[in-house]
């Protein structure tokens, strides 16, 4: 027995158990996210439940659980049709249900507003029938819908044009305001030309707008009539339908196709219905761009600071204190960084920029309000300690012989650094950058007060000069999770999106880390010092 303890057998078990518990926790998290996230877009069957009291319910069975009192189970139906019933979900005791059937002609409509509609197709309006080529009702609907969607794309092009004209008008107005602020009189010729230009643009805007309105009114004539389970008929403009499908009669192949379509929409589309439906493109874009700008600041800053600390600063009390301070910085709660970012970057730096360069716009802030630049800077402040520590360690791990070898050949300290030490330290520096990126991708708290918003009207990059608008507010996947998960008026309907967004955020971090790790391994192969 004594030798059993001596040999450390229990210790092996303890260490193994510790590792298993850690892995298990991580696995459970990933599995929960995967299971809930991946299934969201799979078209599930729509059930028609006949009730004992004569009524009936149409909807997707989302889940079942034991009733609170007594025995038996109850089912949760997603019944949709929010504008008719007020609620998307309904709980029904299994004992109240007499039968459940799956009618082939049940149709699910994804709509621009009010969520899904569950019902049956009755018929199309004459206009819609005119553009369809015949066949049965569903085929006609499909053709008419395709036609309307095509028209709608053109409308969206008009939308872009309108936004661009609007942006230019805004710029002109800013210029005019600036001139007026400088003391020019309103009759100044320069101001007059600006006004003329603006009036021209306004006219253009008006005509474009009218054209758009007219087209919209015309398009709205293309409608279809649907009926819900209780027999209420509803006319719906085809324009408001995103897509429709009959899940009960879909083959596996068409289900896969639908799944992929939804996936593409998720990655490239814009959100609808207060973010609970539609795509996540603006949030994905915002997240990636945020991390990118953050790295652009924190990477050089951290590396340079670490080089000074390790290579140039004289080892002593001060350097030791700085090192402790840097390590401590990494432990400050991120919300504190957020508040600092708000005070220093947004109000301090941004406010000063406004006072110096855009005084005519005040009190409306230009840079003196949250934006992607300030959020990125705040995050880079947050991640710089990680980069510093990693770089310092990487530089310190280089054998002294290499350093001396270079110096002994007549290289200066600077040459040694740039030609030998930095390449050799690069894998370690990359590790730091990976850690920094992963940390930045997961931060939400500091963003909430430095520029993240629920719905951003425009991306920080667009076709309007100067193309990069770092003062703009942005969307972010992490904030998106918080927003739709806890701030949404319809939490139950938003739940699938929470899982999908989480999955996406995890994936983005995974992809970015994988790329960085791949780069690091490549560098490692090239620069690792093999001993013999």
């Amino acid at each position: 027995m004594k030798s059993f303890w001596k040999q450390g057998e229990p210790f092996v078990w303890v260490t193994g158990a510790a590792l298993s518990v850690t892995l298990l926790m991580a696995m459970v998290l990933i599995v929960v996210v995967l299971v809930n996230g991946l299934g969201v877009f799979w078209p599930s069957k729509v059930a028609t439940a006949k009730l004992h009291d004569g009524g009936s319910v149409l909807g997707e069975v989302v889940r079942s659980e034991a009733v609170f009192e007594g025995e038996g189970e109850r089912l949760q139906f997603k019944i949709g049709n929010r504008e008719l019933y007020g609620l998307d979900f309904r709980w029904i005791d299994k004992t109240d249900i007499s039968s459940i059937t799956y009618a082939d002609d049940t149709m699910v409509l994804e709509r621009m507003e009010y969520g899904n509609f569950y019902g049956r197709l009755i018929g199309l309006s004459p206009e819609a029938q005119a553009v369809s080529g015949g066949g049965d009702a569903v085929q006609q609907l499909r053709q008419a819908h395709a036609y309307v969607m095509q028209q709608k794309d053109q409308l969206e092009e008009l939308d872009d044009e309108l936004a661009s004209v609007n942006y230019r008008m805004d710029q002109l107005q800013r210029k005019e305001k600036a001139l007026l602020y400088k003391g020019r009189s309103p009759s100044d010729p320069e101001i007059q030309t600006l006004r003329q230009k603006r009036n021209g643009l306004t006219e253009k805007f008006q005509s474009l707008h009218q054209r758009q309105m007219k087209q919209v009114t015309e398009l709205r004539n293309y409608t279809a009539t649907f009926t819900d389970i209780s027999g209420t008929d509803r006319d719906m403009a085809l324009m408001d339908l995103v897509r429709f499908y009959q899940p009960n009669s879909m083959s596996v192949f068409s289900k896969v196709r639908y799944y992929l379509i939804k996936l593409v929409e998720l990655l490239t589309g814009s959100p609808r219905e207060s973010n609970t439906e539609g795509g996540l493109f603006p949030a994905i874009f915002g997240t990636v761009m945020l991390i990118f700008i953050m790295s652009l600041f924190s990477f050089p800053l951290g590396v340079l600071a670490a080089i000074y600390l390790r290579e140039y600063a004289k080892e002593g009390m001060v350097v030791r204190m700085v090192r402790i301070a840097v390590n401590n910085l990494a432990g400050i709660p991120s919300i504190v960084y957020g508040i600092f970012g708000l005070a220093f970057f947004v109000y301090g730096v941004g406010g000063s920029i406004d006072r110096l360069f855009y005084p005519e716009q005040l009190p409306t802030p230009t840079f003196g309000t949250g934006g992607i630049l300030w959020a990125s800077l705040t995050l880079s402040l947050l991640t710089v300690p990680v980069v510093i520590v990693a770089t310092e360690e990487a530089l310190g791990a280089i054998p002294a012989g290499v350093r001396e070898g270079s110096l002994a050949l007549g290289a200066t300290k600077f040459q040694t650094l740039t030609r030998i030490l930095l390449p050799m330290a690069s894998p370690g520096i990359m590790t730091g950058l990976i850690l920094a990126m992963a940390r930045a991708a997961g931060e939400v708290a500091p963003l909430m007060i430095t520029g993240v918003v629920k719905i951003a009207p425009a991306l920080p990059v667009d076709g309007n000069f100067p193309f990069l608008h770092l003062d703009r507010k942005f969307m972010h996947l992490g904030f998106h999770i918080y927003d739709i998960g806890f701030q949404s008026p319809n939490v139950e309907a938003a739940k699938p999106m929470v899982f999908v967004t989480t999955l996406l955020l995890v994936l983005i971090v995974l992809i970015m880390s994988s790329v960085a790790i791949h780069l690091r391994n490549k560098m490692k192969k090239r620069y690792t010092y093999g001993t013999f």
Partner: protein
Amino acid sequence: MRDNNSVTVTDPIVQVKNLDFYYGTSKALHDINLDFQRNKVTALIGPSGCGKSTLLRCLNRMNDLVDGARVDGSIRLDGTEVNTAAMDVIELRRRVGMVFQKSNPFPKSIYENVIYGLRIAGVRDKTVLDETVERSLRNAALWEEVKDRLHESALGLSGGQMQRLCIARAIAVNPEVVLMDEPCSALDPKSTARVEELISELREKYTIIIVTHNMQQAARVSDCTAFLFEGVLVEYGITENLFVKPRNKQTEDYITGRFG
């Protein structure tokens, strides 16, 4: 010259005079007076911690890098004082090359390793670089082994090859003096023999000062030998004389293996 010195140096390249060296408050070298003969191999021997490496590193001022190191006295390279602020250390290190105990090739290609000294000096001419690589590697007896893989990583070489590469790298910049700090201590006997052979060949062109723990090696490769003990130069003589008929009791004890 003093009585512990039996060498008449007619053509000195490096002259060390009254050299004291301190690490912080502890004195590592005591009043060293030593002239190194041009185009000869001089060995520095002595037990561990006797200051032979310290002395070697004074010659190209590698000790500048050590915190708290202080040097008093005079070192002259071809008559120029080395130990002053006016001396350009970069220039000095180009004239006095160094090979270390543990081979330290850079994580670059073999080619880039050899021309590193030229690169940092700003040489860009491809023909000059190519010629230098071939000449240096030939001189370091490495050319035949690596000529087909010049652009592969130097880290793939064997230990002995790496050390010869470091020698090639040191002589690529045409130094006047090559300092070697126990160049063979990490090598197997075969590689050691190879490097020793190389040292004998190199003496025609360069002055070599070698620190070694291995007395047979000192006897084999060097023309003159200096024995240091506890920071003091005990005896300096023609190698054959010193090993056969040491004039000092301490030297005799050391080389006959009674201590050290």
